[in-house]
């Protein structure tokens, strides 16, 4: 159970286009208010499951136990050499969507700010899942979270991921016909797990020992 206590302000400001600038006092007050409301409205939930039987064939990765095929060059390269994958999904839940909807009718400034805060928040939830997986498998190396829609992995795969994780029943996460996750502040992702060390490009920040106090991450940049 993950409790969101504070939202990553830098990240939210980056989404709002501040690029390192400090908002004015009036806007800061509104951000504070929106953050408090969002923390009340959201109830973060996540699921993940590890699968260890992978087959690489014709540009696809087949997760054998569940008959799931992840197709595309980018996802194949991402998982190449891994002995297993963790499939995960996370959501801020319907309460966050509802709050943003309310603000859209009553106060667009708050809507835009809350939307950015919520995007930062779901990222935090995913980072917490990363940490949990790290603790669960401390001896192995993990890739960064690869989501449908990245590279040539199509959004069509979302439905299968949700089904495998039983996401609708367990955390209320579903798919719209356009392929959009609902509630909207949600993520699905695939993490490769390897017994041998992976290149920095593939492990990303989650696998880096500097991740908690990296100066690049603070401004939303990356070192590689």
């Amino acid at each position, binding site marked *: 159970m993950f409790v969101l206590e504070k939202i990553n302000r830098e990240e939210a400001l980056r989404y709002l286009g501040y690029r390192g600038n400090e908002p004015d006092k009036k806007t800061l007050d*509104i951000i504070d208010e929106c953050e408090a409301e969002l923390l009340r409205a959201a109830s973060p939930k996540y699921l993940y*499951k590890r699968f260890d039987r992978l087959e690489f064939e014709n540009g696809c990765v087949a997760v054998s136990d569940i008959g799931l095929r992840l197709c595309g060059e980018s996802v194949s390269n991402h998982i190449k050499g891994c002995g297993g994958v963790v499939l995960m999904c996370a959501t801020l839940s319907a309460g966050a969507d509802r709050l943003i909807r309310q603000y859209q009718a009553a106060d667009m400034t708050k809507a835009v700010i809350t939307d950015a805060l919520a995007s930062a928040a779901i990222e935090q939830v995913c980072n917490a899942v990363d940490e949990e997986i790290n603790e669960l498998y401390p001896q192995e190396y993990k890739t960064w979270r690869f989501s449908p829609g990245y590279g040539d992995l199509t*959004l069509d795969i979302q439905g299968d991921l949700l089904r495998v994780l039983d996401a609708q029943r367990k955390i*209320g996460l579903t798919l719209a016909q356009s392929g959009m996750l*609902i509630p909207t502040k949600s993520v699905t992702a695939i993490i490769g797990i390897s017994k041998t060390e992976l290149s920095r490009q593939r492990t990303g920040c989650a696998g880096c020992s500097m991740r908690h106090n990296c100066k690049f991450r603070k401004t939303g940049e990356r070192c590689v």
Partner: protein
Amino acid sequence: MFRKLLKNREFIFLDGAMGTMLQSRVLKAGEIPELLSITNPDLITSIHREYIDAGADVIYTCTFGANSYKLSDCGFSCSRVIKAAVENARRAADGRDVCVALDLGPVGRLMEPNGDMSFEQAYDYYKEQIVAGSDADVIVLETMTDLSELKAAVLAAKENSTLPIICTMTFELNRRTFTGVSVGAMAVTLEGLGVDAIGINCSLGPDELPPIVKELSMWTNLPIVVKPNAGLPDPNSSEYDICPDDFAKSIESLVQYGVKIIGGCCGTTPEYIKRIKESLDGKQCAKRSEIRQSAVSSGENAVKIDRPRIIGERINPTGKKLFKEALKTGNIDYILSQGIEQVSAGADILDVNVGLPEINEREMMITVIKALQGVTGAPLQIDTTEPDVLEAALRIYNGKPIVNSVNGEEKSLSTVLPLVKKYGAAVVGLTLDEGGIPKTAQGRFDIAKKIVERAISIGIKREDIYIDCLTLTASAEQEGVLETLEALERVKKELGVKTVLGVSNISFGLPNRELINRTFLTMALQKGLDLPIINPNVEAMTGAVKAFKLLANIDKNSVEYIASYNDAKPTAEKSASNGAPDIGYSIEHGLKKEAARATRELLSTSDAMEIVNRHLIPALDKVGDGFEKGTVFLPQLIQAATAAQGCFEIIKEHLSSTSGSKVSKGKIILATVKGDIHDIGKNIVKVLLENYGYTVFDLGRDVPPEKIVKTAKENDIHFIGLSALMTTTLKSMEETIKLLHSENVDCKTFVGGAVLTCEYAKQIGADYYCRDAKESVDAARDFFGE
């Protein structure tokens, strides 16, 4: 057969999990278990038999996800899978004293406004299942999390079958479902719809259930069902943590709340059912005292009418120019903001009236109710004189509403009351009939009595009837005021029903109306008024209700009153105009009140259009330039636009009251294209365009191309903005532009959205590509030639 069990048995035992049994034998993660009914019927039948042998009185068919959405690519039709599953259960039940329950779970798509499934679509999915499963003995709707979807399912069951209905929803530790439904909302809505038993299944184990079951027992008289998981799952192994013995012990502790129907959900096996049955052998179901309470509910919250509750009257076009304008241009956000404002001012329930001769009231009522239930948890009162509008609203409303209204005329009684009964609503009864409004209290009491008797005779509960003794204007019929109050008092005491009264009419034609309104409100409350219909934004009125509750010893220890007024600041000082910020400064800094004040002042000396062109737009331009240069950021841009919006509204009102001329610089359609439901970007564009003086026809999200074509033609609009967020919905954008061209709509289009590029915009034939909201304004200026 199920109803006989309900009558004769102390407890009814349901089966345990089907999925768990299948997973342990044949099923892989991600496979569709329902197909085993066809591919391995003997296995399914043998599991049913195991449960029957363990003591189950009711077995659930293996059809939880057997709907045409989830089965779409599997090669078998929904109907075929369901028929096979019911047959398998029938085979197992043959010769045994066991009911077969058609088990139906959620469709798997989220309902509007969270998701993209409409009420009507949900209804059709369930109808198909219910028709196919007609050989079952009872219909079970389980693991539900959204009352809208559950209501669609219940109506599909009621209208296409005569079988009894059991409904169970899935709650979390905060006693709400994933979509925010409270225990009370579930109970009040479902009991109104006339289902046979309600309760809780899945998601939690029996140890977590006592507070939820206890709460449920305080909201309903219906038999209570529990079908919990075998504890909580381990996230890794997915195994559940309670053994059959402990499970049975925990269930025993729930019996004190009157639980009558018991089974197991995920993780349970025949062993669990056997143990529950053994542990309850010889025990008695707790006797429950009858609950008689008046309550209504939204899709989230139930509201008991056990104290004065405020019904907000502002969603109503009568005498409101801006509201009428909003209805005509389809500005739903304006109507929603009226709802949100009233709730934050203290309204418990919102009256919804969208009747206007120029518009299609039925369509508008459906749109407004769907939108309102997406943004407010306050129950709604459906206010219309048209029976077809009323029924359409009652169908799609996701809670238990109030119907406003029925009266003593035969025609009204015979059309409105059956709808109230069918959809499980509460109803306002007006004390008037063919002869008009009786002058005396006795006359109104007689009509009230007739309405109450008639309603009760068709099965509406006394608690669901709210009588309105009708307020007349004091200036015209001064002697009538006390007649109204006397009638109210008698109706309440002698007929035992709740009372409702529109208050504001009393002062019509008199000076200082607020004083009269407030005094009359207090008099009526003292006579027993339960539901004052007022403008909650007027603090004096809302405050009077709060003070009354304190003085009448309803607001115990003055908790609510103190919470409202403890940190009340002295009333805002009237800001002197000397040294006050001017309109430009106020807009640039997003100061709403100051901008509005400055506008009012300017209007006394300057021409309205001059204010728009010389003050408002230059100020917005300055902010817009800053935004482009990266010195002003999105939140500031919107704050400035919102401040300007306030100015525009003042100017619009001024113009319509003085010359009647309009301040519009041109008409624009905005829509998020079909399939796309993320519309924050479009809404930002809307705020900006409106504040540059354009009239925006906002068609909302998930808008079919045909609707855009129709709106453009009907309203003679030539500039159309389309937004799409997803790569998958860019196609709809292209289709919309194609249709506009092929239908020869004389228009230009501007497009925007996260994944859209300039090249793609050109490729699909858009006339303007707008990277952000500011560029939309530039496009509009270019098009309208400024």
